[in-house]
């Protein structure tokens, strides 16, 4: 409890991280509560396409006369889900391998690092495209799985080097002197020291995954899901001529702005998170 | 006729505004550094020694600010120097041997070049001429110039780097050299060796030195005059021998007694722990740890007063109304065992 209070007090001390938190909470609410507040009416209303913002259409309407704001709201859910799942998968693989590799050392470490380096040398984006066509993407889970397949190596390397420095630290050495078990060392001593790092990475991977998912949509390798910012962007930019219609600019910009502000929130929050979760910095 | 004091610090205050409050790293400190002498500042870690010294170069690290006071260096007011004057002043007037000398050299530039670029920043000179001078200086600190000049810093041992730094400090024939714990990271033999060199330099060149240390034994060895700092305050200033013979401030005597020595068996720690600099006690900063603390110590901060011509002390035991109570504690001269 005290920890939670402390956490928020640190977050709120920093203007950036406060802004970040507010933005993220806003999007989280958008994704969870939004669909209950706004009703999605997908009925085509061609006559009223590309309308400018008004009281009834906060962000105007799209190429088929549907409310853009509501689409952004409904889209946030899928975007956030994909991002969060990707981050989760990546973290699970990346952190587990990194910790194992760093702690065990020796041959397993060499082998894991070899594979990690290998993955790092083969560019991610083409592989993403390849994966997207190998495993047909159907839902946010498979989307996230594909996005995380090539996402873990960087994290593994970073976690490993963290663990290696931690491992030599005196407080871990003492654990060995005192005959503590490896499990204790991993979960009670090491993990708390990398949580802040992992939490920041969670946010950052999430944000990378969202950009990646848009690339995949752009190449037409992901399922059509108009309530996804990425797909909205693809539709607006490539398929419906939003960029040729001055009235369509709001429609084109909506997903971009939503994306950019979400990422802004991620980065700002990550800045503060480091301080909040890291007792050393919070003097 | 030159003034006897090279540096006169008056009422200097330096603050570090932090998120959780302001650190008063140096508080109303007044200190004279006599020309041609070695003045030492002792005090625990965090007592403000380095901060005070950095003010002499006008290099208080951010977010620190000099909140008030004045520093007269050889008659010039340092705090009023313009940017350009300041740059010229640094190193040519006051040089410094840093606390972490290990890291005071640019790791990717050869040492010789660092000497040259520093020289050139201040005076026009031919490269060969400069090199001659540098070689001379390196010789002086008993290093092999040919090897050192072409070396990168990491190729030298800690003791060697420290000696390079000493040579460096002499490069522009400054009037004052600040030695900020020049041997903390080194072991005893190297420490002794380096102090021998420093003393030699002092003897040969008569340069004024300001030595910062928390090791009372080092101070005893090197300094002519000692200032004792506690929590940003200067609590006592006096001649070295006088001070060791008869420390006036309870903290000073505590420090002297707390130093284990090969000479004596007895030693006694100072109770309590150093103050939190963000939240220092009211009144005399030392009173929570002081055996002789009185009611007024928690209320009023004692001023630094002159006891006689030589010694200054900031302690209510010695301020006017309480002078008689000095007998309450016995810091009479110790009988040496030898």
């Amino acid at each position: 409890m005290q920890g939670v209070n402390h956490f928020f007090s640190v977050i709120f001390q920093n203007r950036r991280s406060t802004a970040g938190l507010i933005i993220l909470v806003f999007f989280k609410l958008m994704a969870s509560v939004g669909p209950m507040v706004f009703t999605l009416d997908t009925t085509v209303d061609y006559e009223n396409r590309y309308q400018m913002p008004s009281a009834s259409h906060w962000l105007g309407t799209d190429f088929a006369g549907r409310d853009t704001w509501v689409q952004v709201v409904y889209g946030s859910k899928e975007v956030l889900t994909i991002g969060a799942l990707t981050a989760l998968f990546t973290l699970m693989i990346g952190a587990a391998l990194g910790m194992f590799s760093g702690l065990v050392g020796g041959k397993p470490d060499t082998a894991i690092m070899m594979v990690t380096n290998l993955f790092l040398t083969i560019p991610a984006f083409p592989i993403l495209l390849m994966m997207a066509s190998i495993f047909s993407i159907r839902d946010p889970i498979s989307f996230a799985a594909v996005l995380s397949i090539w996402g873990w190596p960087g994290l593994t390397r970073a976690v490993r080097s963290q663990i290696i420095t931690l491992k030599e630290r005196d407080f871990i050495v003492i654990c060995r002197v005192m005959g503590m078990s490896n499990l204790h060392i991993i979960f009670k001593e090491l993990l708390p020291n990398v949580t802040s790092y992992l939490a920041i990475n969670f946010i950052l991977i999430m944000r990378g995954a969202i950009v990646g998912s848009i690339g995949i949509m752009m190449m037409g390798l992901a399922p059509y899901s108009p309530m996804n910012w990425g797909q909205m962007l693809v539709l607006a930019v490539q398929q419906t001529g939003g960029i040729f219609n001055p009235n369509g600019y709001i429609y084109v910009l909506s997903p971009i702005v939503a994306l950019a502000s979400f990422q802004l929130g991620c980065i700002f929050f990550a800045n503060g998170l480091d301080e909040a979760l890291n007792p050393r910095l919070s003097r | 006729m030159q003034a006897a004091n090279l540096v006169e610090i008056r009422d200097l205050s330096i603050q570090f505004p932090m998120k959780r409050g302001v650190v008063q790293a140096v508080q109303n400190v007044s200190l004279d550094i006599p020309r041609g002498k070695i003045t030492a500042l002792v005090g625990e870690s965090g007592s403000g020694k380095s901060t005070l010294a950095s003010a002499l170069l006008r290099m208080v690290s951010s977010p620190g600010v000099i909140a008030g006071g004045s520093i007269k260096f050889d008659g010039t007011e340092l705090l009023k120097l313009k940017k350009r004057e300041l740059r010229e002043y640094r190193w040519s007037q006051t040089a410094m041997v840093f606390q972490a000398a290990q890291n005071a050299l640019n790791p990717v530039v050869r040492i010789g070049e660092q000497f040259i670029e520093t020289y050139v920043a201040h005076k026009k000179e031919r490269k060969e001429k400069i090199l001659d001078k540098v070689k001379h200086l390196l010789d002086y600190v008993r290093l092999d110039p040919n090897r050192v000049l072409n070396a990168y810093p990491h190729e030298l041992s800690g003791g060697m780097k420290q000696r390079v730094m000493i040579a460096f400090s002499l490069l522009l024939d400054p009037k004052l050299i600040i030695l900020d714990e020049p041997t903390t990271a080194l072991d005893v033999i190297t420490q002794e060796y380096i102090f021998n060199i420093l003393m030699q330099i002092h003897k040969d060149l008569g340069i004024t030195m300001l030595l910062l240390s928390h090791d009372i034994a080092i101070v005893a060895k090197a300094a002519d005059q000692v200032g004792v700092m506690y929590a940003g305050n200067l609590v006592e200033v006096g001649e070295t021998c006088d001070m060791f013979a008869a420390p006036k401030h309870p903290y000073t005597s505590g420090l002297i007694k707390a130093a284990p020595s090969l000479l004596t068996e007895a030693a006694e720690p100072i109770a309590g722990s150093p103050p939190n600099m963000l939240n220092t006690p009211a009144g005399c900063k030392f009173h929570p740890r002081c055996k002789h603390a009185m009611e007024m110590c928690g209320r009023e901060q004692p001023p630094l007063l002159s006891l006689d011509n030589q010694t200054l002390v900031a302690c209510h035991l010695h301020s006017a109304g309480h002078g008689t109570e000095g007998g309450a504690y016995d810091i009479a001269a110790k009988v040496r065992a030898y």
Partner: protein
Amino acid sequence: MTSLLKLEHISMCFDGKKSLLGERKEVQALSDVNLEIKPGEIVALVGESGCGKTTLGKVITGLHRPSKGRMYFEGKDISGMNASELKRYRSSVQLVQQDSYAALNPARTIYHSLSAPILHHNKVKGSKAAKAKVRELLETVGLAPADLYLDKYPHQLSGGQRQRVLLARAISLEPKIIVADEPVSMVDVSMRLSILNLMAELNRNMGIAFVYITHDLATAKYIAQSGKMAVVYLGRIVEFGKVKELLSEPKHPYLQALLTAVPVPDPVVAKRLKVLPLRSFEMPNVEDPPHGCGFHPRCPYANVRCETHLPALDDYAGVSVACHHVKDVPVWSLNS
């Protein structure tokens, strides 16, 4: 009384920097070290930086497996111990490190750091008992009232307080011996003595033997007044004996040089210019140590024999010294 811990011909060799194709340089951190520690004894290990003190400490605590030699704990060879004996050895030999900040997990509270080992070793059962025990430990090391410290993070304590926490942790498993590796070199001057006093107290009251590692001879003298002292040079013990005798009458030229270099907090004595009885101030390269006596390149008394023959650690006037010239080396005194 049998020895608590006995080291026989211990050598420790580290691989130098790796190079796949090039030759592998080795660092001989310890060579043929013999040392005996009796229950409740204080042994100070002194020597220059890099001479192998920490390595020896780590060998004793079982963190390094020596490359040669045997180590006996209560008469039993460590390498031949079964699991329960090993467990006993492990909890009987504890370590206190130099950097109290690094030695505590920054992400966990003092209570967590202290309770984990005792719970793990079943010294207490349940969190209630653990809390009581931790309180007791904290109070033993002078951190009273304990409740003030339980929920603090390491960075919220001062250096001296943290060092006390380390000692509390070290004694929590009721050890027989504590290796204290420069426990006060990073503690503020004003508080060094109190930590040393605490250690002496633990030694006296609980009968815990201490191996006190330092390069500060003055503190070594302070804590090991009645104990013993081993002077380590380039991985070897070059002089060993009672602290008092060693300090009043150092035999080995190296110890003499060390003592000369120690500054004394007395301006009258200190200001006399001392001449170090040394030919060179630089330590030899550990990767390529000199032949014969490791000290010969720096020793003012060295001769050809020193360059070729390694002196053995022999008894001489009640202390053990490893020097060919014990008899010829002039008597040293602080004033010389």
